[in-house]
């Protein structure tokens, strides 16, 4: 029993990722001793809260068998919208709720193209991405909209202990969605849908309905992430969130979610993967590597994650084949 427990832990993906993460920490610490300064960790937590929040919605959508490349643009639009709503003197809770509602609408538009018009999710959400981006710039006339200090900005800048509030919000959301995925009927049906569409259909599960909900959910969460970023930055910038969807996707894939369904992952694994990606990017900054390396690592990590996934999968297939022959 004890042996199998250890085996289970070591087989666990989150565990191996955590080991890699510690290795990354140690390497960067050796390269620059400032890496372990508390401020720096606050920085990691802050940056990972943005892509992490988006990763929640995106990972759920990917598990159900679709993808949304406009998540970053939805976030931009969310940040801008919340700033605009607040400028009208609206109560901040109402403003936030309205922003999330707009996110839902954006997600539903994506779902319309994919489910009703049968377009490929990749290409149609890329197209929607440029539309949302453009709209964010258009409504702000390409400038950043300031948000006055108040309860709303505290949502972005506040701390509990050493943990920044955005990070805590992300963790809470991860816990909620993790519970949803693992402990509710809906969550399991969602994963079944992504895993085997025919089996889902034969079991009477409506695939389109589930992806539509997950698109709306992804839009809502992305808009929320944008709004929180706006609160942290004290303004809503039309380009603030761009590129975060790449980090979110990378974290999800490293965490084991596979493209267009099939793979699943616990939110915990995604959380570790996310910290790993952000620690790495942050480490590069701390050792004062040219900041543009981030683009390279963003793409490179994604490709690396895919390759590792590929080898793991092919090894598993091989083992399976041999197992079947015995």
């Amino acid at each position, binding site marked *: 029993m004890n042996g199998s427990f250890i085996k289970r832990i070591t087989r666990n993906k989150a565990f191996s990722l955590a080991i890699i993460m510690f290795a990354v920490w140690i390497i960067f610490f050796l390269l620059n001793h400032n890496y372990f300064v508390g401020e720096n960790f606050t920085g990691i937590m802050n940056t990972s809260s943005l892509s992490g929040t988006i990763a929640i919605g995106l990972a759920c959508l990917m598990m159900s068998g679709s993808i949304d490349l406009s998540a970053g643009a939805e976030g931009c639009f969310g940040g801008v919208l919340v700033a605009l709503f607040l400028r009208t003197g609206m109560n901040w809770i109402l403003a936030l709720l309205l922003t999330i509602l707009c996110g839902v609408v954006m997600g539903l538009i994506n779902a319309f193209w994919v489910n009703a018009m049968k377009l490929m999710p990749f290409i149609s959400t890329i197209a929607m991405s440029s539309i949302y981006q453009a709209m964010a710039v258009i409504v702000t006339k390409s400038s950043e909209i300031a948000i006055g200090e108040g309860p709303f900005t505290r949502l972005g800048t506040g701390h509990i202990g050493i943990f920044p509030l955005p990070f805590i919000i992300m963790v809470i959301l991860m816990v909620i969605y993790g519970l949803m995925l693992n402990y509710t009927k809906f969550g399991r049906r969602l994963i079944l849908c992504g895993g085997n569409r025919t089996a889902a259909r*034969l079991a009477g599960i409506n695939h389109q309905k589930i992806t539509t909900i997950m698109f709306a959910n992804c839009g809502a969460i992305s808009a929320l992430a944008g709004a929180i970023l706006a609160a942290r930055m004290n303004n809503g910038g039309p380009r603030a969130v761009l590129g975060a969807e790449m980090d979110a996707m990378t974290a999800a894939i490293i965490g084991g979610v596979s493209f267009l369904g099939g793979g699943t992952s616990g939110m915990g694994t995604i959380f570790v993967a996310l910290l790993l990606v952000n620690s790495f990017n942050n480490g590069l900054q701390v050792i004062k590597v040219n900041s543009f390396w981030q683009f390279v690592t963003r793409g490179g990590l994604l490709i690396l994650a895919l390759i590792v996934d590929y080898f793991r999968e092919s090894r598993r297939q091989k083992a399976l084949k041999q197992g079947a022959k015995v």
Partner: protein
Amino acid sequence: MTEVNTSVNTDRNAGGKGMALEVDNISKSFPGVKALQNVSFRAEPGKVLALLGENGAGKSTLLKVLSGDIKPDEGEVRIGGVPQKFDAPVQAIQAGISVIYQERQLVPSMSVLENIYCGDLPATKAGFLKKKEMRQTAERIIQEFGLEIDPFEKLGRLSTAHQQMVEIMKAYRRDSQIIAFDEPTASLTDKEVTILFDLIQRLKEQGKIILYVSHRLAEIFQITDEIVVLKDGRMVKQLKTAETNEAELIKAMVGRDIGDTYSSLKRNDKMGDVLLEVNNLTTDAVHDVSFKLRRGEIVGFAGLVGAGRTEVVRAIFGADPIISGEVILDGEKVNFKHPKDAIDAGIALCPEDRKEQGLIRFRSVQDNVCLPVFKKMRKGLILDRKKQEALTEKAVEKYSIRTPTFEKLVVELSGGNQQKVILGRWTSELLTTKLLILDEPTKGIDVGTKAEIYQILCDLAREGKGVIFISSELPEVINIADTIIVMHNGHITGTLAREDATEEKVMSLAMLD
């Protein structure tokens, strides 16, 4: 009794105990094929009913009708006398019918437990899962099956046989009154087969109705009580297992009017020297396959779907890697790395799946005929249109392909004409085809065109070409081929000359247990 059960469609497992399943006059057509014609039978509770028939006899279609996956054109299914109407598979499940498909409908990345439930997880009103109940049920089922499987293990980590057992547990868990098995033993080892048969016995004692589809006659005699024999989408007869024997069953399955089709064929009677020799060929899917083919000879491959026939010819053609063994063509040892090498050496393959592997469906007839020889139609830089037209014209005339223009998309032609397009492709004068391999060339083709294709095969042999002819239709193989090779489970189980071959002999070699 009918009054009690009027709300059958809404209540789960409403098909209560003691009610019979009646299939009444079911017909279903697909474009070009009549898959089922007026099939009727009755299955009694507490009995195991076998559905027996060759490939394409309509067994799978019938199961799909029962599972609500397709709607019949005519006829109805009744449970306990109440007519059932299924708009979606889930309604059939609710009415108490579970079908265990041959293609496993499982999710490798999910746990065994969840695959057993397949989305139908027990939950509280708020939607939270009752994990304890799930675990207990799953453990109980696994225990009843007598297997050692961890319910929390990912399904993908299980062996194929255990995965198949999970598929069966899925239906067992639903506690349906009617359970249909589609070739359940295909990927099981002896141990699991024993477990499965015990289980079926228990289900039978509980008064459930079991439908059992299998090719393996031995199994059918072992566990079934009654047998429904299907042939070409029609029901031949319903028999009591105890009152019949293997010979009678095989006769019922395969016996049909052969007519004059075969006797009127103009055959080749002059065999040449050895053209192809295959020695101890082994790949991922086949083991130790050896045979010889002479010029002007038609070698037929018989066997069940999945016996390894397609894999043999794909390996010869260079489409799949060879692990060991040798292929000798025209006295020379060859080792093709790519189909292109095989084509250059004079081999042609008409693949089994016309739609997916043979044709480029949304291109013209002309493109499809000229596909392998475009390279030989270059005139300077450009492709010579006239040559393409001339070649297509020859093929169209030679095989009387019915198409209004050469520009017609090949997807718009009938199945028979599509097959002739492929034959035209491989027999053009621009190719030096010595050996033609045809994998199920008559699948989904009407009777008249079938006869034409038989004659084309004989003509090819008369021209001195070698022909390998794979077919799952027994009369075809034993009447067309000069030599019949029977395969089972990746091995050659017998070689017969046409004079000695009977359907019964071939069938028993193909079903070797």
